[in-house]
Each structure stands twice: as structure tokens, then as C-alpha cells.
């Protein structure tokens, strides 16, 4: 079973929920931090990261000796990442999506490919025996999606029953890539106008992907009850409420997980997992 924890708005508590859910889910869990621009779950789960792999996209490399400057490669590139100017051929790595179309169409077979490193995948075990993996995008790189895609394909060291993916904020392509082929999406929001607005954005994605979802209201008690009203109207189940308590905020700030701070939440997260399992089985 693959569960994605997403939110739309940043800072609503995705990592708080994902790490606590993972810690209560037993031994057979794989945790995947897909927020490759700002990966934070390791700060709470403290894995020993001992395996590493560089990832990125395949960039074209043109063999000038074979190239006839016919311009076919530039013609098929939708991203203007390769250009033929007179007898010169230029590749713009920052525009390339690594689709391989130029390589395929070159009549002289003059194009080969090399890995353009955009980030790394890292994995290891946490002290509690959980299999942990994360992607970390290099500073200055624009594209998160290829790193997330590779992370999802990365074969885990141990078999597992439950995969928990911590998603990036927002509602564009990196979030979609994180959600693809998931079984359930947990949407963490806060009961404020910002939280509601951005929740609606991600709900739109879950509908397009046809993946069942449920809502967690974090910092319950602040703002207003518009999130509740929306969930009611949209038929979205509210699966858990975590009240606004300063001691939670302080503990999480210092790098502690919610279930380690407030033991009573262990039972709540166990129930949450049972509810998700039942909904997925339906």
C-alpha cells in the first residue's frame, strides 16, 4: 500500500504527519521523502544514510565528426534545447528534458547521451529499523520531477508492505509525480483561508488521478471552520484533527516527532492507518 502525504500549502504539517504515521505503522515500512527541494524528514527520523546514487536526465552529446548539421534534432526538440547555427551545434542543458527525441531522429546516429546530474538519492535504515530513502536536488537545478521519478523507481533494500511518501508543497508537476500510482492520499491542511485555498488545488489533482483521499486538520482551533464546511460539501472525510498546541510546535521545531512528543497520538495514528487500509481495500 502506497500512501502519499500532501498539502498544497507549505508548512501545514506534511512531514509531521508522514513521520508519525510511519513510526506507528510497524516494521514493514518504507519512507520516501519526495520533497527533493526541501527534504526534511531525515531530520526527524535520523536514518543512517549509507547508500547513494546520482540521478538526473540524459543529455544529448553530439559527435561533431558524424554530424552533417541537417537540423533534424533541433526541429523535433519541443524545448529549444538543441540548435544548429551554420556549422555549429549547441546544446542548452538547462532547457533539455532528457526525452531522447533528438537521439532517436538523428539520421547519422551522431548523438549519444550522458547523465546530467541534478541531484542524489540516498537511503538507509532509521534507528527504529525503517527503510528510508530521499531525493536531494542540487542547488541551482530547476527540475524536481526527474529526481522524484528516479526515487520512486529505486529498488528498496528490503521488501515492505507500506510505503509512505512525503510530498512537496504546491499543486504542480512535482506533486503529481509523487502521487502517481499511489493508493491513498492524505491531505494535511490548516483551518485558514490559505489552507483551504491550497487544499482545493490538491483535491483537484487527486480527482484527476482518481486516487481516494482524506483530510487531516492540523493546528485545529485557529482560523475558521471553512475547511470543515468544504470537506463536508465535497464528501472528503476528515480523518484526524491535531489541535494548535504550543508544546507541539516547540517539540517539532526541535526535531522531535509528534508521536514521541504526545504519546496519546500513537493510538490516533494506528487508527488512522486502519481507516486508510480499509478505504484502500474497498
Amino acid at each position: 500500500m502506497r500512501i502519499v502525504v500532501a498539502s498544497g500549502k507549505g508548512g501545514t504539517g506534511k512531514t509531521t504527519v508522514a513521520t508519525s504515521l510511519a513510526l506507528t505503522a510497524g516494521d514493514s515500512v518504507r519512507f520516501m521523502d519526495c520533497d527533493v527541494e526541501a527534504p526534511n524528514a531525515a531530520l526527524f527520523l535520523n536514518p543512517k544514510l549509507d547508500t547513494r546514487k546520482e540521478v538526473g536526465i540524459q543529455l544529448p552529446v553530439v559527435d561533431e565528426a558524424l554530424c552533417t548539421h541537417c537540423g533534424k534534432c533541433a526541429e523535433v526538440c519541443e524545448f529549444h534545447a538543441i540548435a544548429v547555427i551554420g556549422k555549429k551545434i549547441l546544446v542548452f542543458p538547462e532547457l533539455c528534458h532528457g526525452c531522447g527525441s533528438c537521439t532517436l531522429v538523428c539520421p547519422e546516429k551522431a548523438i549519444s547521451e550522458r547523465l546530467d546530474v541534478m541531484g542524489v538519492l540516498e537511503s538507509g535504515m532509521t534507528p527504529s529499523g525503517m527503510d528510508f530513502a530521499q531525493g536531494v536536488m542540487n542547488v541551482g537545478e530547476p527540475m524536481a520531477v526527474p529526481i522524484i521519478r528516479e526515487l520512486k523507481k529505486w529498488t528498496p533494500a528490503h521488501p515492505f508492505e507500506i510505503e509512505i511518501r512525503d510530498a512537496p508543497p504546491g499543486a504542480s508537476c512535482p506533486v503529481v509525480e509523487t502521487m502517481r500510482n499511489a493508493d491513498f492520499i492524505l491531505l494535511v491542511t490548516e483551518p485558514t483561508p490559505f489552507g483551504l485555498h491550497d487544499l482545493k488545488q490538491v483535491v483537484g489533482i487527486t480527482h484527476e488521478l482518481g486516487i481516494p483521499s482524506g483530510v487531516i486538520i492540523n493546528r485545529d482551533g485557529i482560523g475558521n471552520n471553512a475547511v470543515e464546511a468544504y470537506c463536508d460539501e465535497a464528501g472528503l472525510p476528515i480523518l484526524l484533527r491535531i489541535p494548535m498546541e504550543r508544546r507541539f510546535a516547540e517539540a517539532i521545531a526541535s526535531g522531535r516527532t509528534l508521536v514521541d512528543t504526545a504519546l496519546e497520538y500513537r493510538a490516533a495514528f494506528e487508527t488512522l492507518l486502519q481507516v486508510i487500509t480499509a478505504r484502500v481495500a474497498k
Partner: protein
Amino acid sequence: MKQLIVLSGKGGTGKTSVTAAFAHLAAQSNFANQVVLADADVDAANLELVLQPRLLEQEDFKGGKVAVINQDTCSACGDCQAVCRFDAINHADGLYVIDPIACDGCAACVYQCPSESITMREQIAGKFYFSESHYGPLYHANLFPGQENSGKLVTLVKQRARLQALDQNRELVIVDGPPGIGCPVISAVSGASLALIVAEPTVAGVHDMHRILQTVKHFGVRAVVCINKADIYPAGADEIEAFCRKNGIETVGRIPFDLTVASAMVAGEAVTAFRPQAPSSVAISAIWEKVVPALLE
């Protein structure tokens, strides 16, 4: 003309609340009628929720294209699926179908299809808006859920804001930035005079602040740092200030944790306008007083 961009790395640290307060404060200062606002967080565009602007114009934003298979001529050879690196082509019941959400728009399949059955179709990926707020013109947008090319839309929002400022001789563009460090952030940072980083004194906030500071530096933009929710974890706030001192980055103030910010959001107002005497309002006003000279430097 100066461009101030508000960024954070980590989401939810308070970028939009600070931006809205700055818009209000600027309107009360020498910058009155000199400001253009831009919301560059196009997949979670929240600035309009606090500024409550009057919508003047809207346009469709054409994003990337997606491939579509003509099933009448498709011979179901599967070549398209073999060349697709984005796992966007599904095969079920003898048919090959493109998943528009997964399609990257590269058109590799178009050129490999032996029966020429695949074409590219343009998509409306979002909306682009021009509005009038109490504190000046606002350029904003809404990227439809799940769409690509948010960087392109951010660039469009910023370009229009800049042109408006040049057109009307306005001196300051204030940009509410997106979280993260990827393509929309890179688009948002380009051309900025100064970046204000809204940091959070949490282990996650500090980690992500390092990454956004490196990103901003990589693109040659100067940064100053303020600390929001500073009293939640004073050790974290001290760590941020020590790091900034050591690296020659100016810190421009601490904002205390204050639920007035959430109340202002519900009221649809900038916190400094909603309750000027609230601890967060007082702190943000003091930060604004420090950001202005840094911006003009």
C-alpha cells in the same frame, strides 16, 4: 526600479503574510502609489486572499502541449510506448492511450509513430490575472492543478508587473515567492534587487533556509533574513543569527509567534492593517524599516 522578492525554502513560514504587510506598509510610506505587487506562487496563490483585490483583467495561460493518439489510424505497434521516458503511454484492451497528466510534451512519440497517428495539442494550463488592490496593482495567476510550466507562468506574472512599474514610473515591485528552490523559484529570483528570506527557527526551517540562501547566491541576488515564529524555538533563532553573522548576511528582525496573523488572514487583511499594535505587526513594521535601506543600497 527595485524588485524585492520574499522567499523561504520551506513552505508555510509566513512569506505571504509578510508580503501583504509590506504592501500595506509601503502604501503608508514614501512608496505610496509607487508599488506594483506580484504573486509568484502560482500553484498556491494566496496573496489575493489577504489583499482582496478587484479583478480587472484575466487571460488564459497556455502551458505546454500534450500528445494525443488518433485511434482511427493507430496500428497499436507500441513504438510510442517504447520511446516514452515519462511512462505516459498506457496499453489496455489493445489500445495505446496517452495519460495527459504524465505527458511531458516532448513529442518524441510523434516523430517515432510509423502511422503518423500522434499530434500535439495545446493546453490551457492556468489563468493569469491583473487586479487592483488597496495598495497598488496586483499581478497574479492560478496554475491549474497538476500542470507543468509553473516557471513560465511565474516569469509572465513578473514580466507584466515589471512592465507596469516601468510604464507608470513606479519604483518598487514586491514579489511573493514560491516555496522550494526549483524552477518557479529560479524564475521568481531572476532580476531581483534583494531577497528577503522568511526563516523559521525549526530544524526543518533552518535546513531549508541554507538551501534557499545558496540558491539565491547562485543566481547573484543579495539576501537578508528575518525570523518568523522566533520564540517557538529560541535555540533555532540563535543558530540562524549566528550563521548569518558568520556568513555576512544581514538579519533584519524577529517576528514572534502570534495567532493574530491567522485572524488577519480570516479577516482578509494584512496583519499590520488588521491590528497595528499586535506583536507580529510591530515586528514586521520594524523589519520593513530595515529592508527599505537594504533595498536602496
